[in-house]
């Protein structure tokens, strides 16, 4: 059954599958039709190279957290394949790993690049890659797990959070046996730079005994554990449920999970199951359309993309040099804004609160999240009012016409229909006599509205 190619459906698709569309992109998606728009969104052929923050040619000077933030935002905002970036962001939350414990920004960068590379492919490849990922190894203590002293941290989360779900198809015994199979995966250290560059199986620390895992007996290693997991129906249902949770926001019905799992189990292809999700009639229900709060990072990327705001490009020069140079330039701080706004909104790339990833829906609506939207909305409003971004000029031209200014601001956020309450509020805000203040207030009020806050 085809999905009606309305502006409302097209805007919804772009908000969820990508970072949200500009008015032009929403029109184009509606004209193409939802199915064609989904196919185009999930086509990776125009994907840019992920790149890296600046590294010196000697390779010893790695970059830090600030450069990592800006590298990520630059790619997310400018990419020709926003749906691919959005999916990599989903996997980052799914396989949540924190630089707080890992400590090395280059290892977090390598993991984020891997999640992007494998994100649309086969789930078994992705699960295998995260099992051998260096940052993950450090984060969940795999490098400490040795024969005779298995550490359960990774083994448990591999099943609970990454592939099957707590209480679904495995027992504490399976956790213990998987932990044995996962012993001996150590880190590869390069000296004299003293950098971790990968993981490897160190036989002297690996448990080569027989294990009983998910009903089978064998001398299993980490790859065998992954292979056994991805065959299980609990795994198919869990992964589909997690995709629905983050893309649709609601609790999926049994029927929806069944539909998606049937697609997923054929080839374990994530691109197939995501296409099925984004073209599922249930995905276009009112409950789903009003069922997801945008995570702050998503809101920032949407704002930067749609209003054409600048981000520092850290690929060619070290962050510190760029930072020093910006000190002498009028407005030179603006391209840095996303680096510190991440602190303000309570969500930093590579810094989830725990291995469960970031919160969902109501989590962002407590007074912490609400005050951040007020405050960050004001800062974004100031940026735009001061002339930053391709859209600023158009908005200035509408000063003195509150209704038109309010409509232009809401549309620029990718909103195609709105409540009377919100529109009244943005019009009131846009009614300030002084143009800059009208833009600041209109943008900040719109930024905190349900229409923008809900993805």
């Amino acid at each position: 059954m085809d999905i009606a190619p309305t502006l409302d459906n097209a805007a919804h698709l772009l908000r969820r599958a990508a970072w949200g569309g500009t008015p032009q992109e929403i029109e184009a998606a509606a004209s193409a039709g939802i199915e064609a728009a989904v196919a185009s969104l999930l086509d990776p052929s125009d994907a840019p190279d992920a790149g890296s923050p600046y590294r010196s040619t000697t390779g010893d000077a790695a970059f830090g957290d600030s450069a990592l933030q800006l590298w990520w935002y630059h790619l997310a905002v400018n990419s020709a394949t926003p749906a691919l970036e959005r999916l990599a962001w989903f996997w980052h939350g799914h396989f949540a790993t924190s630089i707080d414990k890992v400590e090395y920004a280059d290892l977090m960068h390598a993991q984020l690049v891997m999640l992007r590379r494998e994100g649309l492919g086969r789930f078994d490849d992705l699960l295998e890659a995260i099992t051998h990922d260096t940052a993950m190894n450090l984060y969940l203590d795999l490098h400490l797990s040795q024969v005779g002293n298995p550490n359960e941290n990774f083994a448990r989360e591999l099943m609970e959070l990454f592939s099957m779900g707590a209480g679904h198809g495995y027992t504490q015994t399976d956790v213990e046996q998987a932990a044995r199979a996962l012993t001996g995966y150590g880190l590869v250290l390069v000296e004299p730079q003293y950098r971790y560059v990968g993981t490897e199986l160190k036989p002297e620390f690996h448990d080569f005994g027989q294990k009983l895992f998910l009903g089978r007996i064998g001398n299993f290693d980490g790859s065998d554990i992954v292979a056994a997991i991805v065959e299980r129906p609990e795994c198919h249902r869990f992964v589909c449920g997690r995709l629905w949770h983050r893309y649709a926001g609601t609790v999926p019905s049994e029927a929806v999970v069944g539909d998606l799992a049937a697609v997923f189990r054929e080839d374990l292809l994530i691109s197939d199951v995501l296409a099925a999700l984004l073209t599922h009639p249930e995905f276009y229900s009112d409950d789903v359309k009003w069922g997801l709060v945008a995570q702050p990072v998503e809101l920032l990327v949407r704002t930067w993309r749609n209003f054409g705001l600048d981000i520092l490009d850290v690929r060619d020069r070290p962050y510190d040099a760029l930072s020093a140079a910006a000190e002498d330039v009028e407005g030179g701080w603006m391209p840095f804004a996303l680096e510190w706004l991440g602190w303000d909104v309570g969500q930093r790339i590579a810094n989830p609160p725990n291995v469960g990833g970031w919160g969902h829906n109501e989590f962002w609506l407590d007074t912490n999240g609400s005050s951040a939207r007020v405050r960050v909305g004001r800062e974004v409003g100031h940026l735009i009012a001061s002339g930053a971004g391709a859209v600023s000029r158009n908005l200035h031209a509408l000063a003195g016409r509150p209704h038109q200014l309010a409509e232009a601001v809401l549309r620029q956020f990718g909103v195609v229909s709105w409540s009377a309450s919100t529109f009244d509020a943005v019009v009131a805000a846009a009614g300030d006599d002084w143009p800059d203040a009208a833009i600041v207030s209109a943008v900040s009020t719109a930024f905190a509205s349900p229409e923008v806050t809900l993805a």
Partner: protein
Amino acid sequence: MTEELKCSPSPLTRRRFLGAAAGLGAMVAAPPMITRIRDRQEATRAERQLGPVVQASSRRVEAGELVVVTIQQGGGNDYLNTLVPLNSGAYRDLRRDGAVQEENTVRIDNEYGLFAMPYLASQWDLGDLAIVHGVGRDGSTLSHFDETDVWERGDTDYDTQTGWLGRALHAVANGRGDSLLGMSLGDLSPAMLAPGWNPVALPEYGNIPWTAEDRESWSSAAKGFDRLVQPDRADSPLAAAVRNGQSLVFELADLVGPALENRVEYVEEPQMSTGGPDRFFSGEEYVNAGELGEQLVIIADLINAGVPTRAFHVQQGGYDTHGDQADSHPQLIRQLDMAIEAFHNRLGSNAEKVVIATWTEFGRTPEWNGSGTDHGTAGMQFVVGRHAVGGHHGEPPSLTNFDGDGNFIVTTDFRSYLGGVVEGAFGVAAGDVFDANTRALEVVS
């Protein structure tokens, strides 16, 4: 003024940028203060369970009323290396090279030494420390997320939408929802405070308008917010919650702003840092009371200012010590100890009406894994304060007889423990907040 708004000063650092932003608000004529509308809002699903939300009362905490501060030790605190069994071969066998040396503990009686918590040991001597043994639940999944959920809900039923502290405060408010009776500090959403409307979390310093000048500036720049928070007929439950959250921010600012705007800023007081290597652990780093200490000091200032809030919640993370536990765990509990000492000092005589209750989602495996401990079942909890019933509560679990997974057999149901806090501190029957059959442990009087 116009000059400033063009953001032209160079170099314009972030601080100056924010200064410029504040300048704008001061210039624009202030609209009327935000209209409070939450009591007119349509009831959301959860509100229907619990009755309507009304705006914060202007009352204060009355004489004789207690304030509860819950401290969550996130990640699962290790029971055996916090409260160390003395002269126990079973303990040393389980912990091998991870065992705490007895001489590094403060002996509290013939059975136990308290590790790295000298201040709590002093409270024990005063009769102001309750130690609750073997706390957990049957049927634990050993998952952080499941077990944290269970503790926050105070219920093993995953369909329960409310938190135990939210329900208790609801009873305190005689069935009216009073959002500002409970408050959390820190980044994590306080689900256990959630009675169905937006939980109140005190934002980071600077993220909320503390000063009168800031509040006026916010109101000006947030022109239109009085309309934005008006419910719309077409609102979905989440859309209504967005508006409600925005409204609550201004309400919270009105409550805590005046209480905190003249506070003496956090300074590192002597009791908030070891000042150097500590006798409880090797290594060069010293330990300080950290973010937990800062948050508790803010809570002390709010209590001293007389806000009507009856329960505060803070979290200290990092207890998931699968690896390197010998380094991290002593520092965590030492930090907790120092933070509580700093809190008491800041409270002064008001410390008498404050009950501190810890909780952690589970204890850890009895057996050492070579570098730490994995997820276990029963843990231990502390209640601290003049109204704590000092002494041991609950039965210590066996160190030789375990469940089928090699974990402690739970001896104290977590609801009995929390029920004791609720009954003792709020006078609310445990059975009204938890399962009807819950028998409260007398940990607070």
